């Protein structure tokens, strides 16, 4: 395997890692502040992708499509929070899992009813659709580089929001002591709706951005959701830093495992068997990573509580 191919795969891993981060950051924020496990987060990812595909199809503008994705996912998130989710904060995790599982059924089938079962396609903007030569002779799609940049920008933005703004102070206070900040005059239910909408918007953004390199279809959110869970388990629940590092680890392991393991098996068997066995084991690599982290640190790399 050439170093150039390897470098490309590392970039691919980073790209899928930062997109996972967008999902995992929302999930971990919602869990950290409200103590809620939200299985329907993948549905918000799907809503973002469908909104983007529909608007891009109607207007031809990718920028408008992204705005639509953010707005649709945030609005859907706020609506879900107001109608269903806020009844679940005081419930146990089992009830949260079941109610949000019910939401997945409703949102997935509802989307299928609106848009049909066939996948939609979202074209990436012409300005970003070419390739670029990087130092060292790597030729890489501009769009994927842009995704990495967006992911880094969102990570910085979240850090700024959390550490430097009044909302961030309230979020951190909410993580520590709900009763206290309610007593200090902060409208806690508005704060919860806002946090949920922010998490939803991040998921919607990820859905729209990834939708341009994959097809937009019902059920696209759940595999990403489960990967985001793996990220959170590795990084530690409630930690945005953990989500970032976990997401990059998972993205890189998944991508590099898919390339390197078949190569590794080629040392022992014939190429066809090696490709099949290698890819079968590569699909398990991130879960082995997760199991390893769990044995080492049961609450994740940056997790404080179980």
């Amino acid at each position, binding site marked *: 395997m050439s170093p150039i191919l390897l470098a490309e795969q590392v970039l691919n891993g980073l790209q899928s890692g930062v997109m996972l981060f967008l999902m995992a950051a929302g999930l971990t924020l919602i*869990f950290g502040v409200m103590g809620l*496990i939200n299985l329907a987060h993948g549905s918000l990812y799907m809503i973002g992708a469908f909104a983007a595909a529909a608007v891009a199809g109607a207007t031809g503008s990718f920028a408008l499509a992204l705005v639509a994705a953010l707005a649709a996912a945030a609005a859907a998130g706020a609506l879900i929070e107001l109608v*269903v989710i806020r*009844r679940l904060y005081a419930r146990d*995790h*089992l*009830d949260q*899992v*079941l*109610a949000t*599982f*019910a*939401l*997945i*059924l*409703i949102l*997935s*089938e*509802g989307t*299928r*009813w609106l848009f049909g079962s066939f996948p939609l396609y979202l074209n990436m903007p012409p300005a970003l659709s070419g390739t670029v030569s990087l130092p060292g002779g790597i030729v890489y799609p501009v769009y994927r580089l842009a995704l990495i940049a967006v992911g880094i920008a969102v990570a910085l933005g979240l850090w700024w929001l959390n550490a430097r703004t009044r909302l961030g102070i309230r979020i951190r206070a909410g993580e520590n002591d709900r009763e206290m900040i309610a007593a200090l005059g902060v409208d806690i239910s508005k704060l919860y709706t806002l946090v949920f909408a922010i998490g939803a918007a991040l998921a919607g953004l990820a859905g729209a951005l990834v939708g341009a390199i994959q097809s937009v279809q019902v059920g696209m959110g*759940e*595999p990403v959701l*489960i990967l985001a*869970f*793996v990220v*959170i*388990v590795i990084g530690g*629940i409630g930690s945005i830093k953990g989500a970032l590092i976990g997401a990059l680890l998972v993205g890189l392991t998944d991508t590099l495992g898919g390339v390197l393991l078949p190569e590794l098996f080629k040392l022992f068997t014939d190429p066809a068997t090696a490709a*099949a066995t290698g*890819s*079968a084991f*590569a*699909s*398990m690599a991130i*879960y082995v990573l*997760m*199991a390893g982290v*769990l*044995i080492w640190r*049961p*609450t*994740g790399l940056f997790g404080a509580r*179980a």
Partner: protein
Amino acid sequence: MSRERLLNGALLLALILIPAWALYAGEPFTITLATRAVIFALAAVGLNIALGLGGLVSLGHAVFFGIGGYAMGILASHAQSYTPLMDWPFAIEGTKSMPVIWLVAIVASSCAALLIGLLSLRTSGVYFIMITLAFGQMMYFFAISWPAYGGEDGLSIYVRNGFPGLNTLDPIQFYGLCLALLCLVLAFNARLMRSPFGLALNAARQVPERVRAVGLDPRRLQLVALVISGAITGLAGALFADLNRFVSPTMLSWQMSGEIMVFVIIGGVARLFGPVAGAGIYVLLEHLLGGVSEYWQIFLGLVLLMVVLFGKGGVVGMIAGRRRDD
């Protein structure tokens, strides 16, 4: 006699009378539906031991269901192609005998439950939910990308496996076999709930500190519960594969895990016949609403949402009242 006992008796009677009527009226499809309900109930009885008794919210029970299914698929496919499963270090042949397949399914799924339990019981709460979901997804992707046994397409078996003395191709005889297994497992479950182990497990769910204080290890109790639970769900998986004469990665998918949990919740958590009621209602809804609309899962979602938000205790809880130890 308590209301719960009356309800349990009524459910058992329905499981006998409905297929008997279908046999008399010549409606084999109803028998197949009932078989489906009984097998789902068996899978949910398995989950109920971990979830209801042990308090372990496992979103990965499709692993055991699927392993049971693949135990049947792999053994039967080798038997129908007359190729050995392996030659070295000793030869293992495939088989078309149900009891052998069940045994393999139970052993394989309890081994998987032991392994998953050892890892995931290091944590609790939300971590446990996410980890069981993740291990489920791991098996799902492994089954999809492992080409030897059909990969994404799954495995078809031409003829249903045999049971000594029965013609399993006759729907009512296969149904009887499944119902007998369900009753056996329900009887086992009833004994388990009242056994010292069941009481200790119940206590470990409610106040783990006290259980530890009397010298028992809550983690070990939960691990044993998870293994028993996985074994029962694995057995159900083997039966389900035999019902469809088909096994595919869908049996391992996270939706399957969610559905098994839905059976338990709609019926009633930690109630002996809760999973039976839940699976029966699910199959009925699937059949009735599926005929009305292609998008019937929207209605299923709404029903589930209502049960979770407003109907604590599921159907059995609503009819028979709260549990004594609640």
